[in-house]
């Protein structure tokens, strides 16, 4: 259980750094950890479970859609070279577009509800998944394909027996990056048309200059993120058992 111990060490470190910073800055903008934790029960009474639920709901759908699209497009970019040669510049041209600028168009098409939020988060993270998967697939050496090609594997079989397992580690890496981005994006999607969501909660507290509440929300969010990252890690460990015997 060295992992648990080390996580504890990390927690202590992070709180120590926070405490020191808070004491040095000594301003309301940066409250001390104990003040924030003392405030947490109060925050919990404010329907925290629903804030969590709605954020998770939006995150979940975006991650699922972005994963599916990202895997399909990322693989297609490499395995269908003609498609890839058109998609690559398309990705580079569209990835860095300010998604915030697309807000009116997204709202026009998907309204103010969860739909537009999910689409927006997806738009932001799908490129990260695409690029991660594509680069991982690109790194698979040709020799790995040779074996199954000689055995007469079809396109789909090649995908299933080679491309997918060989790029899985890259996919998980991309999903980790995307998950972080998606969470960070909540602050920009949960500020309209909703009164629930951790992002909303934090922004709301911020707008009230209630830094205790804001940092309380951030603590909850960090805990949530940690759990999600741990889940991703467990999924990866399970799906790449074969690496363990190396």
């Amino acid at each position, binding site marked *: 259980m060295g992992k648990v111990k080390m996580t504890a060490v990390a927690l202590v470190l992070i709180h120590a750094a926070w405490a020191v910073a808070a004491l040095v800055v000594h301003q309301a903008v940066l409250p001390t950890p104990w003040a924030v934790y003392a405030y947490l029960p109060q925050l919990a009474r404010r329907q925290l479970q629903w804030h969590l639920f709605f954020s998770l709901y939006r995150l979940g759908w975006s991650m699922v859609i972005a994963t599916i699209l990202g895997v399909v497009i990322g693989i297609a970019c490499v395995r269908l070279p003609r498609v890839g040669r058109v998609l690559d510049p398309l990705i580079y041209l569209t990835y860095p577009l300010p998604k915030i600028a697309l*807000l009116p168009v997204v*709202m026009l098409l998907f309204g103010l509800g969860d739909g537009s939020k999910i689409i927006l988060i997806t738009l932001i993270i799908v490129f990260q998944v695409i690029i991660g998967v594509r680069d991982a697939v690109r790194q698979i050496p040709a020799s790995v394909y040779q074996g199954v090609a000689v055995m007469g594997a079809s396109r789909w079989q090649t995908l299933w027996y080679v491309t997918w397992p060989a790029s899985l580690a890259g996919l998980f890496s991309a999903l980790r990056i995307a998950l972080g981005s998606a969470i960070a994006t909540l602050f920009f999607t949960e500020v309209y048309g909703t009164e629930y969501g951790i992002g909303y909660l934090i922004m709301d507290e*911020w707008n009230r200059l209630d830094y205790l509440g804001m940092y309380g929300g951030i603590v909850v969010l960090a805990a949530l993120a940690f759990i999600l990252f741990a889940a991703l890690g467990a999924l990866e460990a399970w799906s790449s058992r074969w690496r363990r015997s190396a």
Partner: protein
Amino acid sequence: APKESAVQSSGSAAAPKSATIRIGTMAAPDSLPLYVAQQAGYFKKHHLNVKLTAFKSPKERDAAIAGGQLDAAVSDAVALSTYVNGQLGFKSATALTGYFGIVTSADNVKSVADLKGQAIATMPRQTPTFYLDQQLAKAGLKDTDVAIKEVAAIPVRLQLVANKQAAATILPDPFLSMAKAQGLKVIAQSDPAQYQTTLLAVDRALGQNQAVMKRFYQAYDQAVKTINKHHASDYQALLTKQLGFPAKIAAAYQLPHYQAAQAVPTKTLKQAFAYAHQTGILKQAVDASDYQLQVQ
């Protein structure tokens, strides 16, 4: 997944078949009559099915307007000029009761005139800066006499002044009250009875539907009347939940005297449009009165 409205304690029951208006609100006292009318059932009484959507910043509100998701929105004179520029077809319906204050943390700034040479945190080309310009002009200063620090987010502006990284900033409520609570000095504040720059902008279809507008104004006026008979203490829930007031601030808050539905003074609107033209929002001079609806 459950719909959010199912979770909300204040979820509205199914309204009778009536005109539906989607209104975007901001977390500011300007929006209070809308919430009161909604809560007290005034809208329903006037056969209006009003859906209020709260926005945290003007940017998302304007995106929702541009995205066709709102029929009306709590907005302001300079923002209206951007709608004109963006050809969104929105016009000014009624003025709303809102106000700005200029706050400072600098000990040597006692009045607006003392701002000369000081750093002011604000977002240029928006109504608060328009207000600042006017106040500076009154004090015999030009906008080049002060150093503008462009900062979009209001809480950040307030923080900058509190940290003395800027001498002053212009704030609407509830930030104004929060600034006061932090010990910042207010050196100027607008009086909503005379100076109104916040307004309800409505889209073309709604603006032309005079019957609905009329019912809307009736509901609005009823809400205003009700509010003026009450005190802030009667609206603590609304103030804290919908209008973004911290509980402590809300408790000490004094409601302004709300004005019945009335058009924004044409003069103010014209000045705002002139400001918009001068700062490059409007490419050419636009007659403000073309974007003003009569309030009967």
